[in-house]
């Protein structure tokens, strides 16, 4: 049996936490917005002021694209997690910003089960995370159903990573396909501590939030303080459904989480999450998919609430979409809807479809289930639409070009 433990992992050495608010900088590099949709991928190239956008796409028209990520270590390698309605999942790689793509020689796939046993099958790769800055060409991938994979050659070949894919305890926590989200249970929010490549976090829907301090050899759950659907036991890891977990770049000991049951913050080394979403307006609630952290201020995060009442419409509450920001670590929240539709807008922003750049002021980007790409140049004070009539947007990433 694989080495796992139910106790939260502890680190023997923890670098001193950095200041909550890091010094501001004023980058002027051009950005590219990477939009992954149900029917292909699009790249939107912005000018330095982020006012005009050049569309490049579609790439992979008709393919289901769950994530497109630019490697921040070389500034030019793109990975795209793809499948089609008919064909199995794969990864495509570009080293020229999408002018040409080449398929992975060995995409993420579970280990072949012994004869007579029913092994698991990767339905799609859902999440891509570049490894630590000191591990060039290394990537992690999270799949549906829940699996963790690693590539050490820039995404060309992938192997099952860590023991969790085949661990009986983790299998129990992952649950069955019926326990997962409508389009499949997922492993997501793969996070590498910028101070320590052996310190990882990942989350599963369902299956909770987990930490590794030995580069993924073992993981342990961190779910204390997290709530589950009423009537269920929060001590059962399988009942936990973190939608999106983010680590603060300016304070890697602080993480925020948008969960199926609220918004949370944790300050390590504590192992207990605090439900900061209790401070959201009652009529809006604290249910949603995405979580966005400020690149330099660990007290500032943005969320995009959705309707999680009754039958879970998963639309903007009352058809009035808005982001919410806290600038004090979750003590209070402020509505940001200027420029967004005032009524009759029934879309959702999925967990990978909202992000921030590193400019000052920070630019925010979000993609909707109705195929609109929105952007704010002033940290959410005013929103403008970059593109309409795209397919349903699954993921939005933004990267600075060198």
């Amino acid at each position: 049996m694989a080495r796992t433990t139910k106790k939260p992992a502890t680190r023997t050495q923890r670098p001193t936490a950095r200041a909550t608010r890091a010094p501001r900088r004023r980058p002027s590099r051009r950005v590219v917005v990477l939009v992954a949709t149900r029917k292909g991928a699009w790249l939107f190239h912005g000018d330095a002021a982020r006012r005009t956008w050049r569309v490049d796409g579609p790439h992979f028209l008709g393919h289901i694209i769950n994530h497109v990520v630019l490697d921040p270590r070389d500034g030019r390698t793109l990975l795209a997690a793809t499948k089609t309605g008919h064909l199995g999942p794969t990864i495509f790689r570009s080293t020229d910003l999408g002018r040409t793509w080449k398929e992975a020689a060995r995409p993420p796939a579970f280990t072949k089960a012994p004869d007579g046993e029913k092994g698991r099958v990767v339905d799609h790769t859902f999440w891509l995370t570049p490894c630590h800055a000191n591990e060039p060409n290394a990537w992690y991938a999270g799949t549906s159903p829940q699996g963790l994979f690693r590539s050490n050659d820039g995404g060309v070949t992938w192997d099952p990573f860590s023991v969790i894919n085949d661990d009986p305890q983790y299998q129990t926590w992952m649950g069955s396909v019926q326990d997962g989200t409508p389009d499949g249970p997922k492993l997501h929010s793969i996070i590498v501590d910028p101070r320590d490549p052996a310190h990882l976090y990942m989350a599963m829907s369902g299956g909770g939030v987990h930490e590794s301090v030995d580069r993924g050899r073992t993981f342990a759950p961190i779910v204390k303080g997290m709530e589950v659907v009423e009537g269920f036991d929060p001590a059962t890891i399988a009942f936990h459904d973190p939608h999106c977990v983010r680590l603060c770049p300016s304070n890697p000991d602080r993480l925020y989480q948008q969960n199926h049951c609220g918004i949370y913050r944790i300050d390590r080394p504590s192992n207990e999450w605090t439900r900061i979403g209790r401070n959201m307006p009652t009529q809006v609630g604290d249910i949603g998919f995405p979580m966005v952290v400020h690149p330099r201020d660990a007290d500032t995060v943005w969320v995009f609430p959705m309707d999680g009442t009754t039958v879970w419409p998963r639309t903007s509450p009352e058809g009035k979409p808005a982001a919410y920001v806290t600038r004090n670590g979750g003590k209070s929240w402020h509505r940001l809807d200027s420029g967004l539709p005032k009524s009759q807008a029934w879309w959702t922003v999925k967990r990978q479809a909202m992000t921030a750049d590193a400019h000052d002021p920070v630019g925010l980007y979000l993609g909707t289930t109705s195929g609109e790409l929105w952007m704010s140049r002033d940290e959410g004070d005013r929103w403008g639409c970059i593109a309409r009539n795209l397919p349903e947007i699954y993921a939005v990433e933004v990267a600075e070009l060198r």
Partner: protein
Amino acid sequence: MKVLIPGPLLSYTKKKEVEADGATITELLADLDRQYPGFRFRVIDEQNRMRPHVRFFVNGEQLFEMTHPLRPTDELQIVQALSGG
């Protein structure tokens, strides 16, 4: 053996009809993957099962077993099954 290729796989073969060898579906797909790297995993999963929206017909008869014997004179048609909108 003649193999008829459906639209979603033309990005690999670049043509609708190719030649491949094999005494079974397993062997034939191994040959196709040698000629067109990546082809096999798009139609057969890591547990060696046919993917849900891909079908195999030999001389008009649907096959369900990867070990089904093939003859050099057979014609294999790979079909994309319904997969939603």
